């Protein structure tokens, strides 16, 4: 680039590097935090909630990276992976696992299931090249609707998840009952700045750090980062940027796309298990219906586009996005009592950012 004036270009470069939407929304979050401070809301609590929610959603957002890199766009069919994870969770409960064993077996059951389902989903995407995002959205909706039947009809006997009267699984399963709630979040949990002390292990005040959950999230981030530096990962990225280039280098693009979507589906499945334990509840039926959208929005806010995404985008994005909403709710409630403004704001930003990113794709294709 030609530098007209050094100072101008440096500001421009910084903006270009981080991305305008990221800066605007990040700035808005900080503004809300400050406003919250003036309104007498505990900033420590706000930050604690932000970290907790970011940890819960992190892997779901990370699931966007492989699918975006492979050229199939953000994985709007994230619910496909999510229902695999949910199914694994209820199986683990049915088999009577509790506590750590429940978490472990949930993940163990989820992975092979998600691999099979992800493979089929990848096949589907290869059959509909050019309109992946639309197909993905409706695949996600369909699978959630379809799974409502098995949730009702599955002959599981565990009292922890059945309706009190009648058959089928409950809409919301309390994980307290099986010792699964916050099991990972509470592992090595500590808090910062509690009553003047810098670190308090297992503290409940100050800024709470759910160590176990964050470690798992960062481990997943590392695995994805490493994978995209491997031969197979590089092939997937190249196929996503320029299919013709990859093809002329002898890469089987269809196989790359399937691999990427298997990875994305598996991460969706693991992601929902981590999410459930952090939340304390497993939600079935239509709960996963809209779960893809916050994850898509988060990675896009982090600076990804619909055709390029990095692990750093995931981390930045999930913190800003979740931070914005944990902060906006109490602040908006203080300012405009009795309204549902924060939810409206959430929808505006979430859908606005997706729309913005999708228009950018069209521009980039020229």
């Amino acid at each position, binding site marked *: 680039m030609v530098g007209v004036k050094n100072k101008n270009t440096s500001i421009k470069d910084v903006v270009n590097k981080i991305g305008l939407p990221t800066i605007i929304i990040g700035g808005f979050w900080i503004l809300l935090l400050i406003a919250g401070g003036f309104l007498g809301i505990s900033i420590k609590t706000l930050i604690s909630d932000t970290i907790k929610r970011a940890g819960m959603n992190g892997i779901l957002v990370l699931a966007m990276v492989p699918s975006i890199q492979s050229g199939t766009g953000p994985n709007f069919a994230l619910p496909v992976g999510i229902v695999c994870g949910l199914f694994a969770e209820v199986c683990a409960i049915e088999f009577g696992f509790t506590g750590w064993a429940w978490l472990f077996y949930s993940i163990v059951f989820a992975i092979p299931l998600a691999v099979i389902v992800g493979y089929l989903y990848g096949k589907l995407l290869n059959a509909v090249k050019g309109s992946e995002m639309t197909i993905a959205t409706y695949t996600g909706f369909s699978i959630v609707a379809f799974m409502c039947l098995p949730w009702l009809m599955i002959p599981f006997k565990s009292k922890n998840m059945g309706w009190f009267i009648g058959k089928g699984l409950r809409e919301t399963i309390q994980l307290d009952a099986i010792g699964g709630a916050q099991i990972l979040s509470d592992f090595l949990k500590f808090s910062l700045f509690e009553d003047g002390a810098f670190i308090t292990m297992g503290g409940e005040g100050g800024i709470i750090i759910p160590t176990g959950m964050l470690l798992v999230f960062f481990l997943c981030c590392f695995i994805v980062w490493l994978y995209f530096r491997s031969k197979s990962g590089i092939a997937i990225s*190249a196929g996503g940027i*320029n299919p013709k280039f990859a093809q002329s280098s*002898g890469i089987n693009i269809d196989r790359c796309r399937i691999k990427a979507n298997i990875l994305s589906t598996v991460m969706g499945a693991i992601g929902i298990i981590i999410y459930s334990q952090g939340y304390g509840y497993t939600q079935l039926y239509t709960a996963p219906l809209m779960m893809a959208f916050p994850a898509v929005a988060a990675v896009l806010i982090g600076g990804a586009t619909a055709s390029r995404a990095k692990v750093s985008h995931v981390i930045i994005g999930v913190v800003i996005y979740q931070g914005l909403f944990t902060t906006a709710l109490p602040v908006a409630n203080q300012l405009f009592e009795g309204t549902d403004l924060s939810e409206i704001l959430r929808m505006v930003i979430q859908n606005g950012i997706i729309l913005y990113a999708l228009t950018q794709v069209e521009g980039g294709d020229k």
Partner: protein
Amino acid sequence: MSDNLLSLKNVSKEYSGNRVLKDINIELKKGEIHALIGENGAGKSTLMNILFGMPVIHTTGGFEGSIEIEGKEANIKSPHDAMSYGIGMVHQEFMLIPGFTITENIKLNREITKPNLVSSIFGKRLETLDVKKMNEDARKALDILDMDIDEFLPVAGLPVGHMQFIEIAREIDKTGIKILVFDEPTAVLTEAEAKNLLNAIKKLSQQGIGIIFISHRLDEIIDVADRVTVLRDGEHIVTKDVKDTNKYEIAQLMVGRKVNLDSREGTNKNVVDETILRIKDFFVAMPGENVKGVDLEVKKGEIVGIGGLAGQGKLGLANGLMGIYPAKGEVEFNGEKLPLNNPKAAIKSGLAFVSEDRKGIGLLLDESIENNIVFSAMQINEDFLTHLGPIKIKNSSKIREHANKMIKDLDIRCTSSMQKVGRLSGGNQQKVCLARALTLNPTLLLVSEPTRGIDIGAKKLVLDLLKHLNNEYGMTIIMTSSELAELRSICDRIVIICEGKVEGVLPPDAPDAEFGLMMSGSRHTEGSEE
């Protein structure tokens, strides 16, 4: 009123500083057939775009010079203006609606209508079509062209030749048509159809319509045209009466000898009498560059040039060998049968390809130079990888080392090996493509249009590099190029492809006229006349 129907006076055109037309003067008389000939990129299309007031001209700063129609200055700002001045064009690709009948296509948007009850209330747009009158008009136009097909048939399913005629019928049905431009009208026609068409063109000219006839086929020009204008590199070379010239002279004028990139020096070459590549009955389905049955043998250690006009199939050959476009036929490489339609196998067997589509197929523009250089070698040969159990991770330090060596060897001008390829100039991008191909350690290098879109200095570097690879390492090279001059400067022999087949093989020092005739495919009709 002068007897000139159309005169272009000192017409020049620049595309962002690049002069593509210089002082073109063309006069077209009433009833004259004026042929326009030139190689690809000589400026024919630009000239026609100016004549039709195409938006591409006016959005890039207009043109210099003036256009006069019947002695009066014409101000053509849009295709619509051109139409109202009575200029019509028969397009190369058919602009017809398949589901409509011939009449409907001819009369599209100029339908004859009669009022009805609804239209008297809602206006002219809803008037009934006067099908009978329209059919009569269409019939008249078709009769001029000696077409005895029924005007009420749908266009879909008609032979290609007929479609071309319907397109012409549409133009002559327009009232007040004075000038008609034919842009390579016979390119897709069979011989008999072409003959019919040429007769029709003659007939039209007898009715006083001025005709501009663009074609590569010299025989046709000699056959129908009254005068011929030769363009070369945007310059008006000459306008001659056809009866004063012959096709050899036209061919020579068309090719000309351009910038003489220092011709091949002494042949201290090590061409071994061993065939490395044998192609038999080779077909490639590459849109716009179809190969239709090529037989070719390449000896170890030689540089073979593939030349020919655009659209004749020269580019399809290399793309077909690499499995980028569907191909069939028999290919034997290094004594083994080369599996077709399988890029991986092609690369594995020792072929490497530098694509003509540098930005499309050749490079990952958003990636660094080093990633571009090692990509294929990493994927195919598993070079530059560290094994971590079952996972193969890229070895960044080895990659950097190799990339820096390539940057030095090929003199790639960049800030570092981390720079994005998209930021490099065309010539340096081309070198990155070459570096990627060389990293594969190929036995045979296929290079397509290596100098397209790069400046003259970089051109020489790229060509010197190819020559160097050939001389020093004995690498066999097949170079495809539209620029005859560069083929002649480095190749041992030049294969001319015409209509998807090998038209002939020439030594680089063959006379211009030979090349011109072969490229326009006019040689086989005359046998071996020299």
